[in-house]
């Protein structure tokens, strides 16, 4: 079974430029998460989707960040315009959902460097 796929793995851009990250979750997983991980820190949740609905985006900086999950499968996270402080690893995770606990499966992440 394929894991969570993310692309690109690395991205270097200049500040004020736009950038987009793509995530394809594990097949059949209804719940999708985007996290940001700063250097030396643990991941912090940006947004959670249940199918195509964003059910928790309270920590998403909505002035410059946007996300979508059309058709409830793959998802895109966008930053426009990027700032120096956005340099981090952006992780996507998915979970099968349903009753009870299901562990989250993480992708390898996209390392963003903003110059």
């Amino acid at each position, binding site marked *: 079974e394929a894991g969570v796929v993310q692309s690109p793995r690395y991205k270097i851009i200049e500040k004020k430029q736009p950038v987009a990250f793509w995530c394809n979750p594990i097949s059949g997983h209804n719940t999708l998460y985007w996290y940001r991980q700063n250097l030396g*820190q*643990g991941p912090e949740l940006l947004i959670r989707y249940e199918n195509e609905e964003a059910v928790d985006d*309270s920590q998403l900086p909505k002035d410059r960040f946007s996300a979508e999950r059309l058709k409830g499968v793959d998802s895109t996270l966008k930053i426009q315009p990027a700032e120096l402080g956005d340099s981090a690893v952006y*992780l996507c*995770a998915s979970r099968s959902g349903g009753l009870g606990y299901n*562990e989250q*499966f*993480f992708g*390898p992440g996209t390392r963003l460097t903003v110059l």
Partner: protein
Amino acid sequence: SQQGEEDPQALSIQEGENATMNCSYKTSINNLQWYRQNSGRGLVHLILIRSNEREKHSGRLRVTLDTSKKSSSLLITASRAADTASYFCATDAEEYGNKLVFGAGTILRVKS
């Protein structure tokens, strides 16, 4: 501030020794999870312990939970070089909207 905090921040041991990492948190939790992250790779779920459990084992891993002290420990026995990674605890708590809140992690280096 973060819900979970790991201690120590970094740990260096010889292969074959045991490694113990601790996690403290602030609120009542539903469960606590431990994850591992190798350099340049994503996070891998290791083990989950529910709030009504006190100890769980999985292979060379042993996790304890003390809800009265709001703390957990992860013990890796007979460590191997391949255990070199960052280890994070993550809590699932109603106060935080039932989402996983990660600590800053412990960097473990196992020397061969």
